[in-house]
């Protein structure tokens, strides 16, 4: 009886070992975490890529740029994603070397809710930066009226809706405001969270959905959300005045113009806090995936390179329809070249 059990146990162990060995040879599982802003498009890419590539599965957890970088540093994930790239001191902590790759780009729009739902609100640079500083508080402020002679604006108070959680979206948005308005830079600065003015007309809501819902339900509200989200939620968003003084509607073309206005450096980290160009949408930003240069696992490294290649080719085609901006061809070439560093 005893020997029978022993041999049975042995058989189970052997078969388990065998199956796990074949698993390792065939299946590569990549895990990533980070930015929530590109999460919808990343998840679509990874799903399609996993389906089309035998033996490779990619899992992505959208938990925020900061958390993604933290996971990457703790080595709990194979790659991370971040809207604010990666700090130099964090890069220095990774002995294996870090390769940042911009994968897509997005715009941040100012969604608004005005009585009577007027379309095509235009906001000059001074105005929208001062709204978020709490200095312009009524919709019939002379500066807003002057920019929108065709709209009927009442003395509705402006309710400013901002993100309550720490977010890369806030980082990109405040970076832009701090660049165009010195007072904003001095009073609030930039970052994943900033200390918004204390006023009963500043409301914080969690995540993009929270901000969107609050804007929709609050007459006189204005809030910043991602373009893709605004498009899905069908909220009205404002035309913003860019550096060249033109009012620009956020869409794939105006975003592409903004990206084209900045030359991608060797490090592949380019910021567009206030892009040049008459047709550029002013609040546009790249978002990055973060890889280790030396992964110590050729199969994984190969799978990651394939994943990047898929995202650069097939992936870019769906960017526009999902509310993101496809990378310019020159950037795609640069990223492809740099992806060879993932070994």
């Amino acid at each position: 009886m005893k020997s029978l059990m022993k041999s049975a146990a042995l058989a189970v162990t052997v078969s388990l070992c065998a199956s796990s060995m074949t698993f390792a040879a065939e299946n590569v599982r990549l895990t990533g975490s980070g930015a929530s802003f590109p999460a919808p498009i990343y998840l679509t890419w990874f799903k399609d890529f996993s389906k089309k590539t035998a033996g490779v599965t990619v899992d992505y957890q959208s938990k925020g740029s900061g958390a993604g970088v933290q996971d990457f540093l703790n080595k709990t994930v194979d790659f991370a994603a971040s809207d604010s790239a990666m700090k130099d001191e964090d890069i220095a902590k990774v002995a294996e070397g870090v390769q940042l790759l911009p994968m897509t780009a997005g715009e941040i729009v100012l969604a608004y809710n005005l009585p009577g739902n007027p379309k095509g609100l235009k906001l000059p640079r001074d105005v929208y930066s001062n709204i978020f500083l709490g200095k312009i508080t009524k919709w019939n402020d002379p500066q807003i009226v002057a920019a929108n002679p065709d709209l009927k604006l009442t003395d509705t108070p402006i309710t400013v809706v901002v993100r309550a959680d720490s977010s890369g979206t806030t980082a990109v948005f405040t970076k832009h405001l701090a660049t165009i308005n010195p007072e904003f830079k001095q009073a609030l600065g930039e970052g994943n969270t900033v200390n918004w003015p204390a006023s009963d007309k500043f409301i914080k809501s969690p995540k993009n959905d929270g901000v969107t819902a609050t804007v929709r339900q609050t007459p006189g509200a204005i809030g910043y959300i991602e373009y893709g989200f605004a498009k899905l939620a069908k909220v009205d968003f404002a035309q913003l005045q860019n550096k060249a003084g033109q009012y620009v509607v956020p869409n794939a073309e105006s975003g592409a113009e903004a990206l084209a206005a900045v030359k991608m450096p060797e490090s592949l980290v380019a910021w567009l806090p206030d892009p040049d160009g008459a047709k550029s949408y002013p609040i546009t930003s790249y978002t990055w995936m973060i890889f280790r240069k030396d992964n110590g696992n050729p199969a994984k490294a190969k799978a990651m390179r394939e994943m990047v290649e898929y995202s650069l080719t097939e992936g870019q085609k769906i960017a526009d329809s999902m509310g993101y901006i496809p990378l310019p061809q020159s950037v795609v070439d640069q990223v492809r070249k740099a992806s060879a560093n993932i070994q």
Partner: protein
Amino acid sequence: MIKPFVVPVNPDSACQPPSAKDFLVDRTFRALAKIGVVLILALVVALVFEVGRKALPGMEKHGFDVLLGSVWDVNQGKYGILPAIWGTLYSALIALLIAGAFGVSMAIFLTQDFLPAKLAAVFRTIVELLAAIPSVVYGLWGIYVVIPAIRPLTTWLNSELGWIPFFGTSLSGPGLLPAALVLAIMILPTIAAVSQDALTSVPMKTKQAAYGMGTTHWEAILKVMVPSAATGIFGSLVLGLGRALGETMALAMLVGNANNISLSLFAPANTLAALLALNFPEAGPNEIEVLMYAALVLMFITLLVNVIGSMIMLYAQRGTKQ
């Protein structure tokens, strides 16, 4: 080994000494119960210890500035949770007032022969169903239903009675009042259910005696039944308050998360639980220390509420027995 008693008994008797199996079951149950108690205590201690350990650096660095400050600015390293403490207590208190009034009245209505027993059971189930709705759903419901519904009234109150501090600002959207209203609905099932239990556990004889003395229906309820069940009803309020203090997601969506200290019911406010939930995911090491500190403060507030509640209950019991 446990040995059963060996007592000579008449084999025909219906009374038998406990068998070995009875002993075993009894001992095992006792042991399991003891382990359970010890584990629960150990869990609480571990929780407080762990949070306290992580909060310690923050407490050393910032001291009481955190408790008294009202600015939360991560970039400048300024952390103040006074507005969150204020908002937590204020929203929970308003929710308790509303839910307490409705919950206790509901319990009286459902237990004191106002309805046929079957109908009362249906209502009871419906109220208890409220407890099964997820917090996020309450939050969304608050944004899409409650806020638009109360907006006309709040606008009127602000324009006509704006000199009263409670109506001092106009309601923009999320704010203290919508948060407190939704919170009240969330703690209503707890208060209603526990109060009902308290009222139904008053012995039938007490009620009969009251009627026998010639009381009316309402006199019996207000002067006999409710005072007899007071301890249990009070317990339900303490439980409800405890839940209100810790509620997170619905509040994070409805309270406005602004670091304001205002008496106005229509101004956005902040609560400790919402502050923790929204800032934890992306917090850096310096911020985590302070968030742990804030968590400790929240635990302390909840503990304090429970201790005060228990003390009042003890006092009330003594009062009724004398």
